[in-house]
């Protein structure tokens, strides 16, 4: 319990945590800006153009902002301790490695669980309110039908936070961990998208961006990644993204000197 309290104290006393939380919430503003631009465009278009107009799910578009920010927060909670040398103090006080990492995981995961839904549901509510029945009524689907995907999308933010923490514990380097995190979110999906069939769909189904819809089985034809996994398999893959790097990080922390 005191480990949790000390980890919470560490997170809430550095400026970068507030910066990352603030930037995550900027995602909502981005969504609002895109919705506002879309409304302006739609209202000034001719009826023929309006009939063909389409819009992406804005909460899915802005989702990568909180994902990236909370992932970086996860990275920094451990790598900043290695940079400053505070980790030696932390481990002198709590000599067993796993409670330290578990405490950090709990704090970071919890922050992800709070931030994710705020951004996803905030953007959804704002977009729904602003767009109304424009764009062929893409935002008039009953809320309860969209709810499962909104929830699984929100959860990916917590997964990213834990993934960042795991990568940070494994690599001990801010630059290395953030670069790999970015590679997972942006670079690898681009490369996978360029692969010829059937591999682009097979590997695309494993990308984090594909998993929320695969878990709920919602509107799979619109997925830009792939949709081959069953809901249970997709949920397992999502959990593996969070847990595997943490296990590797915990193992390395036990084996190596701080």
């Amino acid at each position: 319990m005191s480990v949790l309290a000390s980890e919470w104290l560490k997170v809430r006393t550095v400026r970068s945590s507030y910066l990352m939380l603030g930037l995550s919430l900027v995602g909502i503003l981005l969504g609002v800006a895109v919705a506002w631009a879309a409304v302006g465009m739609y209202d000034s278009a001719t009826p023929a153009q309006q009939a063909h107009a389409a819009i992406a799910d804005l909460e899915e578009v802005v989702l990568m902002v909180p994902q990236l920010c909370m992932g970086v927060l996860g990275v920094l909670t451990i790598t900043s301790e290695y940079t400053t040398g505070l980790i030696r103090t932390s481990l002198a006080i709590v000599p067993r490695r796993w409670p330290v990492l578990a405490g950090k995981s709990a704090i970071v995961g919890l922050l992800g669980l709070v931030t994710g839904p705020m951004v996803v549901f905030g953007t959804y509510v704002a977009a729904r309110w602003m767009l109304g029945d424009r764009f062929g009524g893409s935002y008039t689907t009953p809320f309860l039908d969209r709810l499962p995907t909104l929830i699984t999308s929100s959860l990916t933010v917590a997964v990213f936070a834990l993934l960042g923490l795991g990568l940070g514990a494994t690599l001990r380097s801010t630059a290395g961990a953030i670069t790999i995190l970015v590679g997972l979110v942006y670079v690898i999906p681009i490369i996978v998208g360029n692969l010829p069939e059937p591999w682009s769909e097979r590997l695309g189904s494993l990308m984090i961006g594909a998993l929320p819809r695969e878990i709920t089985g919602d509107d799979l034809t619109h997925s830009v990644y792939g949709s081959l996994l069953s809901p249970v398999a997709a949920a397992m893959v999502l959990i593996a993204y969070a847990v595997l790097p943490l296990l590797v990080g915990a193992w390395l922390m036990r084996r190596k000197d701080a």
Partner: protein
Amino acid sequence: MRTILSSEWLKLRSVTSTYQALGVAALTVVLGMIWTFYVSGLADERGALRAAAPEQGFLPLIQISLAVLGVLAITAEQASGMIRTSLTVVPNRGTLLLAKAGVVAAVTFVAANSIIVLTYVTSRLIAGERHLQFNESSLANDLPMLLASGLSVTVLALVGLGLGVATRSTAAAIVSVVSLLFVLPGIANYLPAPWNTRVAALMLPNLVPQIADQRLSRRLGDGFLPPWAALVVLAAYAIVALAAGFYLFRRRDA
């Protein structure tokens, strides 16, 4: 100036992260070969297909890893406190930053172009006479794209350096570079037309095809910048980032 350049060169070549960044960027050659072998195999079954050129498909990998190299060239010094030694030896901020920018630009320019050319040559040799689409245009046709790709990597490294000086934090600088390279262009894609093309045409990764006078993507169309204007915008990214970094570097204590 020569001694400062050589000291910057010494700093860059004596840390492992430089070689890790260059190594990750050089993975492009290997990935390009695997890619070409794979699509060649498919082409042998199907006759002809349209495959993306490996030096284009894997360009984001070179861009992000060498941008990180640019960031680390300064933030590693800020993190370790070495920056104070550097500024004691070279008190003039402008000279120090200029030397760093020179070394980073030279290293990334040579590295990026070697990697891109090597990927180009190996993939074309492997592809041979098969109909893969990307190997069927002449070198003269591909040259603008190759040069623009190499140049964009150098610009990203300098943007990384400038942001590193401005933010003094590895994490903040890398996140800013990533926003410029991936997040903002991604979001610009989703703006309603014609604003998606207008905004996306100014985004860093989309300047490369515009310099080479090629199409941006199926979704965005041609873009609207002529090649020279796209080149100016590309250079402006590096200059603005470095100028912002320089201004803050002069104003603040190390």
